[in-house]
């Protein structure tokens, strides 16, 4: 009898119901996350090529990674891209959010317009970018030529390929803007007024009131961007395949190549674990720094 299994107390019943409601997530965690994570860890200690046997080789994959020029280059590329794209994205999306935060005639239309590029999936951005950033004949350089600037070779240049990716990321600034808009709207008006009474100018008000109040959103957005930039894949895959001269060889793309072009699954698993550790370390670092500056709650307003 099922009812016999039901706990008698209210609290117990609630727990039971909660487990039922949350069960999809528990199953998902087990099947799609935790299980695969440990499988990947196991594979990383093996020589596993999908068509052959799996052999335990201990730390050999990790040792090989240390000497793998391309892997190290991919980490450097990823780090460079992350370090360049996150601050720029944060500043740009916050600036845009501040620009449109005050309601004005047509502000919804403006916000929607700025959000529009965020609706473009990676493949579509890539298709468009392939023509916009196509040498001197792409739209970008033709426009620059109007103002007598000789644009770079963008995607064809090993120096400019990563910055071009950053620019493509900035085009999606609307997603960050939406987040900051929500945060800005939750800044209490009376705080701003108090600051005005205290004679703070707008820059001081922004720095001392608004910024602390939205700092959780900034931290949150930083983490989202961090994770996203560690995972940059589609643009590389469709647009550059890692070139020119490995300049857009990002780690996830390299892992993909190792697993699905070379079918070196064990080695690829090791690479993915190293990437995971890097992601954790960087995220932890950001959280640590963030916790010093992020203002979580506001008491004493009155």
């Amino acid at each position, binding site marked *: 009898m099922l009812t016999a299994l039901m706990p008698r107390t209210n609290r117990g019943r*609630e727990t039971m119901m*909660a*487990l039922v*409601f*949350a069960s*999809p*997530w528990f*199953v*998902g*965690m087990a099947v*799609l996350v935790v299980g695969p*994570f440990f*499988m*990947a860890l196991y594979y990383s200690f093996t020589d596993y090529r*999908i068509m052959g046997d799996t052999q335990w080789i201990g730390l050999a994959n990790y040792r090989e990674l240390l000497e793998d020029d391309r892997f190290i280059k991919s980490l450097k590329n990823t780090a460079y891209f992350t370090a360049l794209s996150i601050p720029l994205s944060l500043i740009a999306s916050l600036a*845009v959010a*501040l*620009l449109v935060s*005050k309601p004005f005639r047509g502000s919804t239309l*403006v916000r*929607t*317009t*700025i959000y*529009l*590029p965020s*609706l*473009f*999936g990676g*493949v*579509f951005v*890539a*298709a*468009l970018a392939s*023509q*916009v950033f196509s040498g001197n004949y792409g*739209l970008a350089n*033709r426009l620059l030529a109007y103002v007598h600037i000789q644009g770079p070779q963008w995607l064809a240049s090993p120096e400019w390929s990563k910055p071009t990716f950053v620019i493509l990321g900035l085009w999606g600034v*609307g997603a960050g803007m939406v987040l900051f808009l*929500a945060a*800005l*709207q*939750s800044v209490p*008006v009376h705080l*701003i007024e108090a600051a*005005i*009474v205290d004679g703070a100018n707008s*820059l001081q008000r922004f720095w001392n009131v608004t910024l602390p109040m939205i700092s959780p*959103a900034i931290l*949150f957005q930083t983490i989202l961007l961090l*994770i996203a930039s*560690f*995972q940059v*894949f*589609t643009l590389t*895959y*469709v647009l550059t395949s890692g070139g020119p001269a490995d300049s857009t060889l990002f780690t*996830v793309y390299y892992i993909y190549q190792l*697993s699905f072009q070379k079918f070196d699954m064990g080695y690829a*698993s090791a690479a*993915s674990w190293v990437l995971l550790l890097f992601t954790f370390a960087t995220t932890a670092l950001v959280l640590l720094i963030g916790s010093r500056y992020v203002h979580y709650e506001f008491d004493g307003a009155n």
Partner: protein
Amino acid sequence: MQSSPTVSPLSDVVTGNRSRAQRRLRSVGRAFALTVVILLCLLPVWYLLSTSFMTRDQFFQPDVQWYPDPFTLENFRRAFRIVPLDRYAWNTLQIELVVVPATLISASMVAYAFARLRWPGRDKLFLVLLATLMLPPQVTLIPLYVIFRHLGWIDTWIPLMLPAFLGGNPFYIFLIRQFMKGIPAELSDAARLDGAGELRVFWSIILPLCKPVLAAVAIFTFIATWNDFFNPLVYLQSEAKKTFALGLSSFTSQYGTDVTALLAATTLGVLPPILLFAFALRYFVEGITFSGTKG
């Protein structure tokens, strides 16, 4: 720089005549900055749209071509000839038809457990849920591929659909949970007193109130699924099963790409998310604003 939506008249107390001019200057500056931002956002979109209707001869003119002259649909015709865009679109829609409802139901169930039920370990597990947002999916890629391979699911849509039944993206759970937390406890308590079971409270009381956030999640899910490239790339090989985003990536050949046709196909590819977004804009904005960002 004003960050508050409702600006109090107090500001006039402080600001004198001198700064009135300053403020005018500032608003001109703001208008200018906004114009630049909007141009940067729209120019590529206009370029995409106009090029889709251009002849190839015009496209390859040395100057910037601002609008199609003559106007042609030829690019779209060629795009459909090069790859079966209609089939790709239909495939993606079929996947959406499963993924979107499944995500809505499973994510809101999980969110309900986290938002409106008390149970031991809840808050800790919620942190775990948030932490899974940070995991690079590439780590689980190989094991999942191996698992799906053993199940014979490679080159089927199952790997693309399965996660939707298991809560979907944790971010959606998070959004719905934040929204549900904002619903007064009295509502469900009253229903429980009337003898409603938990399922009923969930289905008849809470879910109907969650419409805005559910709409937002539905749109997010639709767009994410439409734009997804990585998973279809790994799991789908047959032409007959490809999604739109995946199909578009093979729009090239060694001797190059029919550029204007590619851009025409791209225009078609970005259309569904944009139309959907425009259509449901109200829900979208509400859903996000209500949820806030502090959690």
